[in-house]
């Protein structure tokens, strides 16, 4: 739904796509409904995540990045619109479903809850200071202190081919 124009993208090289696809998407976003980006600490080498990995990270099941750094999950206020959009668009869950998953993990002692922030700025500050951090924010809040990660939805994967 967000990426119809990706099919018109003429540049064949994978490397340039990594740069241009996010930019293209960012341009597209401004003409469409607002979107939510996944962001990590700029020093994190990870540039793309599959939807499965994203779900595993935000349901606190995946605990470490490939290089062994512990993942620190940061989220915005669970009652906010940004959080609702993040849950529905990127995780395909309702916020209350995600909350139930977090509660079961936390209160059985087998997992940790994500850290909550009331503003995107506060989240970004923490992200910049936490090497293993991952969070999300509205695309319009993009900041050099946070590195955007591409999420492999089926259409994005098609565009990358």
């Amino acid at each position: 739904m967000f990426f119809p124009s990706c099919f018109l993208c003429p540049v064949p090289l994978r490397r340039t796509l990594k740069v241009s696809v996010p930019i293209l998407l960012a341009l597209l976003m401004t003409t469409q409904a607002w979107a939510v980006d996944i962001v990590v600490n700029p020093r994190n080498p990870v540039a793309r995540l599959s939807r499965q990995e994203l779900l595993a990270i935000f349901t606190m099941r995946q605990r470490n990045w490939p290089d062994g750094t512990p993942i620190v999950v940061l989220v915005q206020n669970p009652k906010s619109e940004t959080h609702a959009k993040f849950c529905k668009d990127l995780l395909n869950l309702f916020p209350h479903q995600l909350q139930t998953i977090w509660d079961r993990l936390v209160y059985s002692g087998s997992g940790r809850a994500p850290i909550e922030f009331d503003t995107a700025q506060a989240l970004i500050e923490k992200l910049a200071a936490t090497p293993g951090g991952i969070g999300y924010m509205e695309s319009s809040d993009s900041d050099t202190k946070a590195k955007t990660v591409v999420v492999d939805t089926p259409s994005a994967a098609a565009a990358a081919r």
Partner: protein
Amino acid sequence: MIQKQKQLLSIRRPLLQPHASLLSAVLCMTAPGAHALQLASNWQLNGFIAQSGLYSDGNNYFGHSKNSLSDDFFEAGLVTSAQFDNHWSLAAQVLSRKAGDNDDGSPGLDYAYLRYRTSIGPNLETGFRLGRFQLDQGLYNATRDVPFTRPSVLLPQSIYGENIRNSRFAHDGVQWYGEQLFDLDRLRWSIDYYKPISDGDETSDIFVVPVPGDIDGKWSWSANVAYEWNDGRGSIGLGYDKWRNSYKLDSTDVINFLDDFGSSTIVGALANSAIDQLNISPAERQFARGLIQNLNAQTLQQLLDAAETLFPTVDLSGYINSFNISGDADISSTVLSLEYNWPRVSVAAEYMWRDMETSKFDFALINTRFRQQGYYLQTVWHVAERWDLMLRYDDFIYDADDRHGDEINRLVPGVPLHRAYAQDVTLGVTWHIASDWMARLEWHNVEGTAWIPASENAENFPQNEYWNLVAIQLAYRF
């Protein structure tokens, strides 16, 4: 609760050291800019507190709720976990729970365990838990005391019965577990080898009639497997648990019990068993049996008095006073669980059967075996952003061969027939006031009294077969 604290000391030494470091880590973390101790770099503390009110119109439940409001249901807990490195972590929960006569509110250690986990490739994780940890059976057992992880104020009593809560929630031992990730699915399994927690109340936990004697846990085991599909929306689980105990009675226990609850059937059967053990001639044995049949003694003491008059040379009373009856009491339970979560509606169903078996007693009468069974069907509807509606049917049978209670009523006169079963239709509403506050109201319409703990009603047995229970709860968490 004192027993629980004693058992904390018996948990292996390594657990005690992290507690001290955790405390230092807490103190360091409260000072801004200070470095936390590397030993516990990732420490988390959560908690909850909930106060409930209960009103019933037929029987007492959790305090004096019959025709009055009982506030005797209060839960507060602290949960902590610490991640030491990629492999080692610790989790513990302290709970204070006041629930009528079943829990007195003194804080107890619910669980405290050390976890070692390791990844074998990106999709397989396996590990161990050591210490005191929850029985991972059914959808709700692992977090049964946390209001925010339950669908209602009271969990379905067929499977999560109050009477067995204290001994079944957690145990001490070791668990090996694993999780295998597939594309959208996940397979989880665990095997526990444990010693049950004995707090001295197990006989009333297990039997619907307050039976005397001492129960001591023996090494037991449990195995559970669960499969989740569709990103965890659906899950199906199967759990098996073999809870083994030794059960010991002495003669005064037996005599007092029979005097309180005995019937001529039980007294006669016990007396016949005793006669079999005695070193007397076959003619005397036959005479004694005939005597018992004709005596119609209601209490064992009457029988002993009569026997002593008629058999002055046989020290029947002395013999009975000298014995200890001991044997095994095992409970094997199997739970099948099913759950599916659509965006706005969840359905859950669980089915349980529990084989209760006493064996190895010299008195054959006491060697018995019966099967309990229960199931529930539940749906939760997320009607609006802050509101949930819940509907549930819960069915419990104390003895599958005695569905209407005739057998237990015959064996132990005075026990109402309706003590053998309970069918509960519950309607509940949850208001998520804020992310950390929740209020609940529910109405149970119940037929039968099988899951009311024996101690709650003055005559020792709940008296009303048809009754209603309304529960209201306010809960806070952090």
